[in-house]
């Protein structure tokens, strides 16, 4: 119970601090727009490849950009931890009765809220650019849930790395090093059926793929809800494990101070 209320207090703090940075908010909103427009134009003709399996690229790309945007936002969440460590805010919380879980969960709640706002914006923009989603509102909701479920483990691991490394450069480096390949090793930009065989195997173990796949299925005319659910459950399980790891990282941090 304490963990839940403390998480909310922390989430409120993070949301409030975020709301005080209008320029930062603008960037987080404009960035996905650029992806959608840029990649939408660049890969426009990709759908003509035999076997791509989507009527228009913007139909295909929109859920991909939702997943990618949320993914990268989550990858940066460790930066907030570094900031708190540098200011001494983290040490102050660690000598108070605050729940350790809340120090991670509060950030994840904020991450989730931002992810929902970004996702809705991208979907609306996709529709304006001519995308059609037969799955309707329900499909969009499921897509967003999957995107949020992806942001949780990524955000938690980013926080864990921040606590262990305590350097901005490491968090930036690690998140680029891990997230870019994960994005390209998924169907965010390219249909799975057109990937080389080895890649199709690798892709099955990629959480980014689970989210993109589940979201796209939900947006289709006749979703296979069993597969959607299976992927969502995998993401949820990964979230729990990652959050536990992040909480453990506090011990490692406290051993070193």
């Amino acid at each position: 119970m304490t963990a839940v209320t403390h998480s909310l207090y922390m989430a409120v703090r993070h949301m409030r601090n975020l709301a005080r940075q209008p320029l930062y908010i603008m960037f987080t909103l404009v960035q996905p727009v650029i992806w959608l427009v840029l990649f939408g134009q660049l890969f426009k003709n990709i759908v003509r490849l035999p076997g791509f399996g989507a009527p228009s690229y913007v139909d295909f790309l929109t859920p991909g950009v939702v997943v990618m945007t949320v993914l990268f936002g989550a990858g940066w969440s460790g930066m907030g931890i570094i900031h708190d460590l540098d200011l001494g805010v983290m040490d102050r919380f660690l000598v108070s009765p605050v729940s350790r879980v809340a120090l991670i969960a509060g950030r994840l709640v904020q991450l989730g809220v931002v992810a929902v706002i970004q996702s809705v914006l991208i979907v609306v923009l996709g529709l304006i650019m001519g995308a059609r989603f037969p799955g309707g509102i329900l499909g969009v909701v499921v897509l967003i849930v999957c995107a949020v479920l992806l942001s949780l483990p990524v955000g938690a691991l980013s926080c864990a790395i921040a606590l262990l490394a305590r350097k901005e450069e490491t968090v930036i480096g690690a998140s680029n090093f891990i997230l870019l390949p994960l994005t390209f090793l998924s169907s965010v930009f390219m249909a799975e059926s057109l990937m080389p065989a080895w890649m199709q195997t690798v892709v099955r173990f990629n959480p980014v793929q689970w989210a993109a796949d589940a979201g796209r299925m939900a947006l289709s005319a006749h979703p296979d809800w069993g597969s959607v659910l299976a992927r969502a459950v995998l993401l949820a399980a990964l979230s729990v494990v990652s959050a536990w790891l992040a909480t453990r990282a506090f011990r490692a941090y406290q051993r070193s101070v």
Partner: protein
Amino acid sequence: MAHAEALNSFESGVARPRQSAPPAIEVRDLVKTYRGGVRALDGLSFSVHAGTIFGLVGPNGAGKSTTVKILTTLSRADSGIAKVASLDVMQEPARVRLAIGCVGQKSGIDSASTGRENLTLQGRVYGLRGKELREGVAGLLERFGLAQAGDRVTRTYSGGMQRKLDVAMGLIHRPQVLFLDEPTTGLDPEARADMWREITRLANEEGITILLTTHYLEEADRLAQRLAVVDRGRVVAEGTPEDLKRGLRGDTIHMELAQSEDAERSRGVLSGLAELREIAGEGRQLHARADRGAETVPQALAALESAGIKVASITVSRPSLDDVYLRHAGRAFREADEAGAERKTT
């Protein structure tokens, strides 16, 4: 027990150390080695009476902050005993956290939030709610002269204001024991004097036990009822500032020679005077101890003059904590401080 003690003294308006009460802080044989083999604490021991200000004094890298980190449950000792408010910090960290307030060396303020928001969140974490929380926050802002600035983002605060907010945040849950790790480092003289007044008031009027670390010897002298001089992870001297200074017989005479070439010769001349002892120095600076400093000065001057050595200036001072440190740690404080700072940054 200790809580009742604190309440008592709060009501009566005076706080005196009571020998019968259990110590508010008890540290015995604390050892802490960091990865890489740096031995930060090497059998550190001291204890603090409830309702008093206790100073941990020492140069950079002496182990003061490590001690505070262990006592406030942030870090763990390898061995030894540490108790705060009669609770073992290693066995019952959760209960210790409720009993203590902590102002770390780093500020600990969220710079993107306002003073009021910082205080409110801190209070919430300790379980304060509603009216009690609102009034507590408003009261502390008022008391630390931050009422006007309370709704401004703390990034805009001066160093002194931030430090005051830090202390206010350490007090929001009315702790029994307050830890202040180098509370005045980096403050201008005015803000420092302000902070000194506030710290004295906390102990005198509210009966809070305060453990203060500082590497300003003057600060410990001014504030602490008792202090421990820490060097290389051990307590090398403990007592009231007066006790420690009394241990040094007599006064210190400082001399500045006109020419550094005369240094060696003047030492020879001065060592011929029976009244002077512990003659030491560097370059043009010389210092020595004498039972009656003021009476010895003319003799020293006369002896030097007859040897043809010119003295630029000469002063006599009562023993200071600098001298205490020099005597117990076997090296000058400033020298140790610089060496410690260097070790920290490399």
